[in-house]
């Protein structure tokens, strides 16, 4: 995917929700897109699978290549044939993602029915197998339940079952655990990881949860205000982040080894996309801000092989080294997941 830009026509004018974003992903890899709410993570994933509401959304530039084809140039019918079958998506809120008037089994089965033209009977049987695969007990009887008869975790599993039903090549998980309880979150993430290994999926994990990104991803992109501010291998990002925003995110994450120590908070709020400053979008909140940051919009610079950062002082920031004490990353999880209340 290269130079993708998406704009929205809103009350406050044209908003660049995604600005010149480029990422690439190899087969079997997991890419985590990390950022606060409103940073353009979800819009990016919607653009890939083709569910952006147009209008008011508008893809104003860029290409999305999937298996050598530019998705943005495909005819709608071909695009639909890829969506679901080869690229699948799991959305944030399973409860509203499921249609409450149809049984869970129907909603999984219609994948086979629609994409493969199977009979309803055969589709339903396949749905039972899938529910089994996502570890829903008594799959054979629960297949006829309505979504509201499922718990939140089970709903998300059902959504996952539908997503993996046709063994897609790429799975986009848009904050798959935000709406779930902490304990259930872990189970769902474990399930996703297992499925990824078993089916050989590539995965884009959209999340605001750094710990989740660390555990799951091979590579990490950090988004801020519609742009990718830092990109690199997992170990590069976590080992020695080269953008002040990434550092800020780490500092704002609760850690096991710090006990009750006070959390750092990134001052300010996410910027209004309709009125971005002329210079670096993060400058107003950056603790290392220099005069030039306000004037000049930083371009991505390469710091190491595969590690880029869009900060004028990337190498200086990079030189700070690891934000975590030695061993913290390996011995413990970066921190128990806490919902920061998005």
């Amino acid at each position: 995917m290269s130079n993708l830009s998406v704009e929205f026509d809103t009350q406050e004018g044209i908003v660049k929700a995604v600005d010149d974003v480029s990422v690439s992903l190899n087969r079997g890899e997991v890419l985590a897109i990390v950022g606060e709410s409103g940073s353009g993570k979800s819009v990016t994933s919607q653009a890939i699978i083709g569910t952006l509401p147009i209008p008011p959304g508008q893809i104003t530039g860029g290409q999305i290549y999937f298996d050598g084809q530019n998705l943005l140039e495909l005819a709608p019918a071909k695009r639909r044939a890829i969506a679901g079958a080869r690229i699948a998506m799991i959305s944030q809120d399973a409860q509203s993602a499921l249609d409450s008037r149809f049984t869970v089994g129907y909603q999984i089965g219609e994948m086979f029915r629609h994409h493969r033209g199977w009979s309803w009977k055969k589709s339903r049987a396949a749905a039972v197998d899938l529910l089994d695969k996502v570890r829903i007990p008594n799959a054979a009887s629960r297949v006829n339940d309505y979504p509201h008869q499922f718990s939140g975790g089970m709903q998300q599993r059902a959504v996952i079952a539908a997503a993996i039903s046709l063994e897609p090549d790429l799975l986009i998980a848009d904050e798959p655990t935000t709406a779930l309880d902490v304990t259930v979150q872990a189970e769902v993430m474990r399930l996703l990881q297992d499925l990824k290994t078993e089916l050989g999926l590539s995965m884009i994990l959209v999340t605001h949860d750094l710990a989740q990104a660390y555990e799951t991803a091979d590579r990490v992109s950090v988004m801020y205000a519609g742009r990718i501010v830092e990109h690199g291998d997992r170990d590069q990002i976590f080992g020695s982040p080269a953008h002040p925003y990434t550092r800020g995110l780490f500092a704002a994450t609760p850690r096991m080894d710090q006990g009750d120590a006070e959390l750092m908070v990134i001052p300010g709020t996410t910027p209004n996309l309709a009125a971005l400053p002329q210079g670096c979008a993060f400058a107003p909140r950056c603790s290392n801000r220099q005069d030039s940051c306000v004037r000049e919009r930083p371009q991505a610079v390469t710091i190491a092989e595969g590690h880029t950062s869009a900060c004028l002082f990337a190498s200086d920031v990079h030189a700070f080294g690891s934000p975590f004490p030695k061993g913290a990353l390996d011995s413990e999880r970066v921190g128990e997941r806490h919902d920061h209340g998005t």
Partner: protein
Amino acid sequence: MTWYLLSRAQQSVLVILAAFVLVFVIGSVIGDPVDLMLPPEASDAVRDQLRRSLGFDQPLHIQFLNFIIRVANGFGESIWQSTPALPLVLSRLPATLYLAGCALLIAVPASLALGGWAALRPSSMADRVINIFSLGGVSIVDFWLGLMLVLIFSVQLGWLPTGGYGGGSVAYIILPAVTMAYRSIGRLAQFTRSALLDEYAKPYVMTLRAKGMSERRIFLHTIKNAAIPIVTLSGDEMASLINGAIVVESVFSWPGIGSLLLQAIGQRDLFLIEAAVFVMTVIIILVNLLIDITYAYLDPKVRL
């Protein structure tokens, strides 16, 4: 579910009781029953005699008891027809229900088609035309529309009869049913459109798109979701169709309760009027109850 049905049925019974009291209050308290039954030129002696013979000179609570007894005996004797009023009204009921039912059978599919069409192409030319057409439905005087249809299809073209029951044959019911259906189409089509647009805004539609489903299949989902409010409103429409039958029936000389009510008003036949009003009210309350039961059945969340 059972609990819901019971409480709903109890509510209906309450409304029916209220209707009962209201009929008494309007007929005997707001209006002077003797004035309502006799022509204005009747002499005072005649008035007094009627007042005494029907017990309207008694205190109100006694009158109310008399009223209950009278209702139990079929709302008293119709002055005009000299038979108990209630059976007379009930004998006209099938014709009214038949007409309202046919109107609904026209209105619902037409509204679904128009509303669905408009919702799939919001802001298009078709959407605007449908919008104005359906606003026309709630802006038109139904008896005038009926007269216009008679003028065109009966007087000018001679295709359809001007009125009457015709033993319930299709030719006779087309004009009155279409006349009544148009107003319902106006309301239902607009409602269908907005209900569908609401559904299209919900996240599950995005999931369906992400699953690569065709627009046809997505429409299947949205229409099933929108069905519940639409069914509910269709029930409301049945009620307002029965309501609207009063005027339209008289335009087409359709032998239903509506035209009976009008004749009764013309004859100053108070007891017959009371019976007609009460029966129609009860029918509408029952229709509403039926709709709520259907609603409960359709919605898997309430069904539990």
